[in-house]
């Protein structure tokens, strides 16, 4: 929560020596100035302030989860794991998973940038249910506090997947408490998704037809569908798992005729779509950054928009590919494997359409483009290796090895976290009204890209060679690759901390950004930076499509 102090330390109008004299009129009327008390922040219903609350808390959880990752990577430098005990290591990766999945990746982009931008992009004054929005943040915090309590009280060692019967009968940690935490935070997701869907349907400005929606909106709409439809199943699964642990109800216990694999079915019915909850908003961000950088309409708008919805739907049909070796019937595996390949169609469309968008564009080599390019590159690698693990015979070999770890980190960290930082660098001037040093942004993007590949590419090799995941003690033959990976992780850790230094610095010392620092289209760039509390003095009437860059600029330029 250190960031909130920084927010309050913005220029003081009464201090003549303060560089804040450069503060513009708009800054004075902005949402940031609508109240200075803690109360005005904690009881706000302004979507922009709630977005800032999320931004701070989500980032704090990112660093807690990251700290667990640093511990693990440090421990894995030696094959015998000198730093942590077996149980300590198990607790570290469980908390890393739980915190990163439910307290960072899933809420990351939707609750921060989604919250901040959806009303601005569709020409609304707020989300449909502003108080529900605030409530979701409090629910998120409640779940977060439970998790932090578990962290302090000794942790949990089931892995974030909570497979029964390990979680329900054998594990020692605070399994039920973590289940409660995830159960609670699930409601935060549900309410956020509900709010977004209703907002997109009912609060579009006059003239803002579906074909004029930004791709960011489409992907958040698709994300919200998954949030709303998948999360309740996880809640029920966790209830059953906790009841199994507390009362031995037996649904997952073969001794009473239950089936341990049923847990995996129910869990992955949520958790596979959850991967798309994490990556769809990132895809939306990438579409925005690519179009903005190229100063060109996105190539094949309807294909890109439709593919978001297609991904959301197909994501519910593929969960069994996590269970090819779990004892699922062979026929079910064949069905799930086929359906998994179908995800490649909409994902492929996006990748190639982004590339085509850059063709003959006016590409601004600013930090947002660096992050977008790095997102696309890493997402391609992660997505295509996803096809590799969808091939059943190969999956039998690489399932539960570092190959899978590398695959989903390319998607979630390479993809989603890059997009999160890309969005931060793109909309930061809008959020705080100040610009940062672009050079630093570019450097950060490059460091993240290099550090990331150094960390996770060796893990593909480790996995194919046969190193299983969740291994604290490993064969010394794997040490070289593990040391490389840990070295990459240290670069990555520094690259992730760096932006917060120059971005926070920019809040005080940056130049005023003006309403449209990147010179791009979109309703959010028509209002002052930072936006006023009510977003629009008058609700705009929309007459043009998204990414409506003038054609003459296209042919001219020099």
């Amino acid at each position, binding site marked *: 929560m250190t960031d909130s102090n920084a927010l309050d330390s913005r220029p003081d109008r009464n201090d003549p020596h303060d560089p804040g004299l450069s503060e513009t009129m708009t800054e004075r009327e902005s949402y940031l100035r609508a109240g200075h008390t803690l109360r005005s922040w904690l009881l706000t219903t302004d979507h922009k302030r709630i977005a800032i609350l999320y931004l701070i808390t989500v980032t704090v959880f990112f660093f807690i989860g990251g700290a667990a990752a640093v511990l693990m990577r440090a421990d894995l430098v030696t094959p015998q794991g000198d730093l942590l005990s*077996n149980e300590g290591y198990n607790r570290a990766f469980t908390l890393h998973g739980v915190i990163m999945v439910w307290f960072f990746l899933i809420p990351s982009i939707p609750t921060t940038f989604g919250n901040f931008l959806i009303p601005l992009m569709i020409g609304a004054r707020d989300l449909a249910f502003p108080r529900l929005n605030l409530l979701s943040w409090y629910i998120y915090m409640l779940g977060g506090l439970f998790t932090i309590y578990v962290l302090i009280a000794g942790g949990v060692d089931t892995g974030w997947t909570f497979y029964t019967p390990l979680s329900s009968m054998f594990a020692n940690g605070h399994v039920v408490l973590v289940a409660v935490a995830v159960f609670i935070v699930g409601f935060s997701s549900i309410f956020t998704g509900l709010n977004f869907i209703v907002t997109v349907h009912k609060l579009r400005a006059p003239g803002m037809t579906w074909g004029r929606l930004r791709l960011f909106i489409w992907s958040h709409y698709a994300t919200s569908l998954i949030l709303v439809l998948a999360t309740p199943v996880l809640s029920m699964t966790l209830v059953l798992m906790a009841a199994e642990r507390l009362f031995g109800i037996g649904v997952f216990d073969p001794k009473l005729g239950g089936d341990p694999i049923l847990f995996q079915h129910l869990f992955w019915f949520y958790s596979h779509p959850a991967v798309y909850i994490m990556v769809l908003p990132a895809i939306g961000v990438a579409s925005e950054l690519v179009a903005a950088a190229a100063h060109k309409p996105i190539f094949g708008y309807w294909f890109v928009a439709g593919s978001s919805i297609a991904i959301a739907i197909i994501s519910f049909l593929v969960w069994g590919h996590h269970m090819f070796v779990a004892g699922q019937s062979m026929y079910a595996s064949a069905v799930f494997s086929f359906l998994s390949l179908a995800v490649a*169609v909409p994902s492929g469309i996006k990748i190639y*359409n982004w590339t085509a968008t850059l063709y003959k564009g*006016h*590409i601004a080599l600013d930090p947002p483009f660096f992050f977008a390019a790095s997102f696309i590159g890493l997402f391609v690698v992660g997505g295509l290796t996803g096809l590799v693990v969808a*091939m059943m015979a190969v999956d039998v070999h690489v399932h539960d090895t570092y190959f899978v770890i590398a695959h989903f980190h390319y998607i979630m960290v390479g993809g989603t976290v890059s997009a999160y930082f890309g969005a931060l660098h793109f909309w930061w001037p809008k959020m705080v009204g100040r610009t940062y040093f672009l050079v630093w942004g570019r450097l950060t993007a490059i460091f993240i890209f290099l550090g990331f590949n150094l960390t996770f590419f060796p893990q593909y090799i480790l996995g194919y060679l*046969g190193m299983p995941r*969740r291994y604290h003690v490993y064969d010394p033959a794997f040490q070289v690759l593990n040391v490389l990976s840990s070295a990459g992780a240290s670069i990555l850790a520094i690259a992730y901390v760096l932006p917060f230094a120059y971005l926070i610095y920019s809040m005080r010392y940056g130049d005023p950004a003006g309403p449209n620092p990147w010179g791009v289209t979109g309703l959010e760039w028509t209002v002052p930076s930072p936006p006023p509390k009510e977003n629009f003095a008058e609700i705009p009437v929309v007459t043009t499509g998204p990414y409506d860059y003038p054609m003459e600029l296209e042919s001219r330029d020099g």
Partner: protein
Amino acid sequence: MDGLSAWASEISAHAAEVDLLAMSFFLLVLSLSAPVFILMAVFAVRYRRGKPADRVHPIDRNVWLEVSWAIIPFALAIAFYIWATRLYANLYELPADALEIGVVAKQWMWKFQHPGGQREIDELHVPAGQPVVLTMASQDVIHSLYIPGLRLKRDVVPGRYTRMWFTADKPGVYRLTCAEFCGADHSMMGGRFVVMQQADYALWLEQTEVDASLAVQGAVLFRTYGCSGCHSPGATVHAPSLDGLYGRPVPIEGGQIVTADEQYIRDSILLPRQHIAAGYPRIMPTFANVLGEEEVLKLVAYIKSLRAAPWKDRQ
């Protein structure tokens, strides 16, 4: 053999084919993604802002282009899907003349039982060139037997038998390990997978101390736990005879007919009410709290050994 080769050697024909499949697929992946990387870099340089370039372009969409780059990679992937699925389906077609080895997993060790009664812990000796079927049971949580050299793994799920089969060709010492997270010492649950020439394997079998074959050990259990009290012709209790039961279709209460396989025999011992042979009273007690998976495997081996012969011949 040491180091990486203990993990990554291709021990079987299946392993070689999986590698071939994976490598060909990696090539496809590379050919699909390389254009993206190259074009993005080229565009970023050639069309960077401020650089003069021909930027005239007619359209911002092209349905046929988009459909083609959606469909062609998918079609290519389907070809690989067929290949991969056939390879996977092979894993389910158990060979008839295989050597059957029982596997019991528990936190945190692997126990193997050879048909002759030889037992080993965290070490599995198999003959080269002969199909081997592993019948696997878990005593506690889900484990996963992973032999990287064979490119095979299979979860070992409590409450049921899962099976894995292979023909290892290359003698040597390799790794076997647990791939499914199973608790505190998960990363230490593994050992050696030893492939031996048939003659060496026979020698090893001889030199390993044995009480009795699995089936004979099962017969002892059959008497000590009182199974024979009911399941014998002379018994006053009306219980089905087990002679020649294995592999036979059994009519069960409710009209279904099931095949008496290992799983059926196991369930009948541990969950006797689940499938009652039609026409018999429900009097069999459960042995779930009495017998461990190792004993059950022995009993299963014994019952499998019962041919359809008169009871007293075997006494």
